[in-house]
């Protein structure tokens, strides 16, 4: 079984985000970038499936400028076998990204596509579902457990009301939630080895996909700031404030 995993290079989750003064975007100059945390979980899941003998090959794909090759190398250091960079400007919209990933999945004849549920920059939570729709594959989003058996994936999903289990026929798309696994760290020898693993570069034209979007950014602004609060000295003072000042407790 072949697994395709998509990885996105995003601002590191620990970085404090700043908006550019011209309100055109978030300022990414000299900011630490990392693999999207949900993609780390996706890579980890694929590698575990390979270690269990369920998968025979793990291919990683990223859509973006040259710098996303760094993220692909990280994925290979973690255990992915080879990588594909689809060369495109960063910040392409989800539908274009989904078309490119869907095409790669088709060309690779991947049996399972594992993606993050959400990129922590755009917070879109949609690319995996779009890939599934474009390929007319079944999907299991927000996965917290994946079991592959008899050409099916049994996937436990984190939903608003609790947990739901679906059985989907392969080929299929799975998107990862936080509790699916705890990603490993890359060891130094593996980081060295990853430099020699194959990394192919393709363009949207190679894949026969036209990219573009009808969505444009009007502005990006900082969120409204909360007015600073106060520290109370005791539980009694807190209760008094809640009752008599904020009037949220009767």
């Amino acid at each position, binding site marked *: 079984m072949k697994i395709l995993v998509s990885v996105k290079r995003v*601002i590191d*989750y620990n970085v*404090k*985000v700043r908006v550019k003064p011209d309100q055109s975007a978030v300022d990414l100059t000299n900011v630490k970038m990392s693999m999207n945390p949900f993609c780390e979980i996706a890579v980890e899941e694929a590698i575990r499936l390979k270690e269990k003998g369920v998968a025979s090959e793990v291919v990683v794909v990223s859509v973006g400028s040259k710098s996303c090759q760094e993220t692909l190398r990280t994925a290979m250091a973690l255990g992915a076998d080879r990588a594909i960079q689809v060369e495109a400007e960063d910040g392409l*919209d*989800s*539908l274009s990204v989904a078309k490119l990933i869907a095409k790669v999945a088709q060309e690779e004849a991947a049996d399972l596509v594992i993606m993050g*549920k959400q990129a*922590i*920059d*755009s*917070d879109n*939570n*949609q690319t*995996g*579902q*779009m890939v*599934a*729709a474009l390929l007319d*594959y*079944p*999907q299991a*989003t*927000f996965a*917290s457990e994946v079991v592959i058996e008899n050409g099916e994936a*049994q996937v436990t*999903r*984190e939903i*608003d*009301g*609790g*947990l*739901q*289990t*679906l*059985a*989907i*026929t392969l080929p299929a798309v799975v998107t990862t939630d936080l*509790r699916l696994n705890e990603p490993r760290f890359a060891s130094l020898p593996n980081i060295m080895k990853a430099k020699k693993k194959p990394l192919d570069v393709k363009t949207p034209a190679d894949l026969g996909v036209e990219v573009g979007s*009808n*969505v*444009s*950014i*009007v*502005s*990006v*602004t*900082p*969120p409204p700031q*909360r007015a600073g*609060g*106060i*520290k109370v000295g005791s*539980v009694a003072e*807190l*209760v008094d404030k*809640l009752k008599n000042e*904020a009037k*949220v*407790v009767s």
Partner: protein
Amino acid sequence: MSVLIIAEHDNKSLKPATLNTVTAATQINADVHLLVAGFECQTVVEQASQVAGVTKVLVADNAAYEHQLAENVSKLIVEVADGYEHILAPATTTGKNTLPRVAALLNVAQLSDVIKVESADTFVRPIYAGNAIATVKTTDAVKVLTVRATGFDAAASTGGSAERQVLSQVIASDRSRFVKEQLAESDRPELTAANVIISGGRGMGNGDNFKLLEGIADKLGAAIGASRAAVDAGFVPNDLQVGQTGKTVAPDLYIAVGISGAIQHLAGMKDSKVIVAINKDEEAPIFQVADYGLVADLFDAVPELEKSL
């Protein structure tokens, strides 16, 4: 042109997030239609028909839609999409599961977590865990949006009298099968609809200690929430997680107990009206957003708070 909303429900009742989505839809266009896709969901249809502002309810009642699988519901939506310029769903796990599929099938973009309608083609949504707010304009022929409930007031659940249209097409999903569900059962209000929420974090120490919060929740009629760390540690189930990748809440009162206040947690609760933080570390970032901060050991403060309410 009318707006189509995909109703959020469990075959028994219409979920409140639908009402907030109706408000968003009325800001786009006065003619709002609701699609109820489910199985033996007649009571939902009744409720949907009474929502103020809804003029028509489309009903797809068939075993094929019982679990609202994204594969077939998205195809159903695309079949009825003709004539709608906007398709909306609440930004719940159901809406987020299905609407991107709809958008892809229609070859248009999908905008997630809309918190404000500027005009029929311009919408506001938070990005980067709410640390930036993007205003985006789309010229797509059909605008597909998920709507964050905390951004809009709820429409009145009664007062309307929508006409009904029964949809006869049955689209089955042969490659996706429902196996089982473990739904949390609680007598408390739903997290996303509660007026008061008390949440616990890693500082709670273990799952048993969450009982300390229950007494206060009982007295205040509150829902109980949690940070990711508390869920990851197995103290409480996943459906309690508040944050960037959990639930977004904006109650009148949010009490954070033993929660440090990471940006991913703040993303889910910082629009609450009044925020209280109880934490023994006076440097904890949660105090930067708290209206009332109490530096204390929660194991002393929480029982005392319960007694004094």
